[in-house]
Each structure stands twice: as C-alpha cells, then as structure tokens.
C-alpha cells in the first residue's frame, strides 16, 4: 500500500535537493504532521508522492515509476482502450448522451448537444473500469499475482476503491496500459496518464446506438441493484428503530 521512506527520501533528494520537509509540505499542500507521521512510520502513501510531484511539475506517473513496486509505469504512456475510456464516463453523462442519440430522439426535438463530460473519476468508476477490461479471469489472475483474497478485492470494487498497487496489477493482468486504474481511482488525472483530451468523448461518439443503449442498460441495472439494497437496509434499520428505539 505504501512506499518505503528511504526510497522516498532518495527520490525527494533527486527532485528538490535543497528543500526542507517544511518547504515540501508548503509547496505541495500536504499537512506537515501527516508527512512527519508517514516518515516516522517509514511508510509513505502513494498520494503523498503524487502531490509532491505535481507541486514540482513532474508527471506523477513518471514519479511513481521511480519506485520499485511501480516500475511498470515507466516508459511512454500506452493509449487507453475504448472500453476503458467509456468506463470513465459517469452514468448520468452516458444517459444524457444516449437521450440525444437519433435512436432515442428520432424527431430531434432537443437541438442542443449534451454538455461536456464531467472529468473522471465518477461514482462507480473503479467497478466500471475493472468490468470493462475483465475477460472473466482478471480477478483470479490479480488475486494470484498479488495474494489479495478475491473477496477483499471485490469489497474494494464495491466501495469504488482500489489500492494503487492493485490498480496497476489489474491493468497488467488485463494487458492494458498500466496507468488506467490510477485514473479510475482518481489518483491521477486523464491528462497525467497520457490520455488525449477528448478521448472519452470520441470513444463515446464512436459507439453505435445499440451498444450505447445496452451499456446504459447495464449501468442502470447495477445502479438499481445498489439502490434497492440501500433501501432494503434502510427499511430494516427503520424497523429496528420503530420497535427498539
């Protein structure tokens, strides 16, 4: 989950040789106590490295590639697949663009184009990203490669979270660009991962009406399941209050 403090300090020496810890914190907006604690424990969080590299105008992906567990991130960025790009479009954006399609609006009543896509990540971006690159065996391969139990992996996806290592491991297991998962988890931006600015919009536009409708249907079905479960939990809790509160 974390990076060793020694490697971090070596890296920091390389990018800001004369800066004190206080300087680094001020420039990068990290709380001094947070960084001090991470240094004392010898465990530097990945987001600390990302914040510092941004502050010193270094690409966070390149910065992370300096650390042993993230070697795979080195080298020129690999372009994302269309599935990955579409997975990083939020469900509301997807639905809006579907409603503007010919198939949904034959009379072309709404003349205006849907607004620009909101930036990644979105409420279910992690789960959608893994689903988009999963050939059915990816979860097993990640589990085998990292030793993380499948149920723990699933629990992270359900919570729309994924640790940076697992995100990279998942991308490798699926054979896609290594930084895609870091975009889906919101650790880095699309731009930092080397995704072209309008890549998501272009991927969306290239989808046929049928594919887009089916995808929107899948998203709605998953959302419905989550909402129903929340409602069920809520009803159960209310019943307990009613009888025992």
């Amino acid at each position, binding site marked *: 989950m974390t990076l060793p403090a020694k490697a971090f300090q070596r890296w920091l020496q390389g990018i800001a040789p004369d800066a004190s810890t206080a300087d680094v914190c001020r420039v990068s907006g990290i709380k001094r106590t947070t960084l001090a604690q991470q240094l004392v424990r010898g465990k530097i969080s990945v987001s600390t490295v990302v914040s510092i590299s941004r502050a010193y105008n270094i690409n966070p992906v390149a910065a992370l590639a300096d650390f042993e567990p993230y070697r795979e991130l080195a080298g020129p960025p690999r372009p994302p697949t269309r599935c990955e790009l579409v997975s990083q479009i939020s469900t509301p954006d997807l639905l809006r663009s579907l409603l503007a399609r010919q198939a949904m609006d034959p009379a072309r009543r709404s003349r205006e184009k849907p607004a620009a896509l909101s930036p990644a990540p979105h409420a279910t971006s992690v789960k959608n990203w893994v689903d988009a690159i999963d050939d059915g065996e990816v979860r097993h391969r990640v589990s085998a490669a990292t030793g993380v139990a499948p149920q723990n992996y699933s629990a992270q996806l359900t919570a729309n979270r994924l640790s940076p290592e697992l995100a990279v491991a998942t991308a490798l297991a699926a054979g896609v660009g290594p930084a895609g998962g870091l975009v889906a988890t919101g650790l880095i931006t699309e731009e930092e991962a080397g995704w072209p600015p309008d890549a998501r919009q272009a991927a969306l536009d290239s989808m046929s009406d049928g594919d887009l409708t089916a995808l929107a249907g899948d998203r709605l079905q998953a959302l419905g399941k989550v909402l129903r*479960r929340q409602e069920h*939990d809520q009803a*159960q*809790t209310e*019943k*307990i*209050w*009613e*009888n*025992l*509160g």
Partner: protein
Amino acid sequence: MIAILQWTTLAVCGLIAVARIPSALRGKNRSLFYIFALMTLAILLSIEAPYVAIDQALGGSNIANLLLRFVIFAAIYFVGVRVTKGFGAEGAYRLITGRAGMAVLLLISLAMVAVFFMMDTAGSSAGLVGPARKDSRNGVLVEYYGAAGRAYPSYVSLVLLPAMVRAVGSRLPGLVRVAAGLLAVGGIAIALTLLFPVIPRDWAAVEFVVNYTAVLCFVIGLALIWAARVKNGRTAGGRETYTEK
C-alpha cells in the same frame, strides 16, 4: 465481588429504566420501559437483603421467588417480541408468540407453580437456599423448580440467537450490530444456565457471573440500540423536519 456485580447491575438497569420514562410518557415504545423496569425488579428480587424484606412483607413463604420467576418470564417475553419484530425475524417471532411459544410458557409455568407448592417454602431466603437445606426431598424439588425457572428464558434466547448472529454480520449500523452481538452473548449465557445442575457446588460463583453477564448483555444491548437511534436521529435531524411535514 458478587455483591458489587449485583448492585452495579441493579444501578445500570434502574438508571436506564428511569431514562426511558420520558419516552414512555410520550407513548414511544412503552414496552421497552416495561422491559427495563421488570429487569430492575428482577435484579432487586435476586439480591438477598431486598429479597428478604419484600418476601417478609408478602408473608415470608418465599412467594417473592415465584414472583421473581414470573417477572423474568414477562421481561424475556417482551424482549423476545420486540427484538424479533425489530430485526424482522418472523420465524422466531412465531416461535415466541405463536402456539408453540404459548404452550412452552404454559407448561413451564404450570410445572414451576406445581413444584413450588410441593415444597416446604417457609423462611425467606433468596435463591431458596434455606428451604433447599431442610431435607433431601426439598433439595431435589428446589433443583427442579430452578430448572423450570431457567427453561423459559433459555427457550426464548435460543430462539433469538440465529437472528442475532445474522444481524452481527449484516450491513446494519455499527452500534446496532454491536448490540446484536451483546444480545447474542446474553442469549448464550442464558442458555448456559441450563447446565447449572451439572456444575459442582463449589462453583456457585460461576452461576452468578453467568446470570449477571446475561442480564448486563441484554440491558446494555437494548440500551445501545436506543442510543444508535438517538445518534441517527441527530445526524438526520435536519432532513427529518422536512419530510415530516
């Protein structure tokens, strides 16, 4: 040591009962107030000094012990009804309030009353220690009487147990799950009281600890659910005023 345990339990339970008075006056879940009040009375009647005082007032023939048993039955019945309703355990609810539950209650009560009147019960003594020492026949009868008195609470708590274990592993609020865990521990403790006849006599302290663990677990468990609702009401307070109109 045992005296401390007894009086602490009495104080905790009595305080919670008093704290429930305002909501009982407002008509909110009155049975919860009855549960706490009945439990307070039951604890009072199981401590030697108050027991002797009350029993003397009732004629000094240990009729207070019979009263204590029925107070416990009433308290555990209400606990069973409220908890099964609250946690949506319909099968368990039927096992307590349905024909089976009523038959169990009736049979145990009849047996208990019959044994009580077969005994020579003169001389107030908590736990019927005095009458048990009179002769071997009385000693055996006190054992049977005690077993009957423990049978109904054990029945109800065993019926509750599966629902409580399920609630611990559910997605209910944390405090409610802790409460369900306490109710489960209390239920197991009550069920363990069935084994008292096989416990060696020198281990009387074990019986006390098991009894009071059970009572404390139930009382604190129920109070925690109440606390969880109060906490929930506070965080959702702003929203509630909107929806109530």
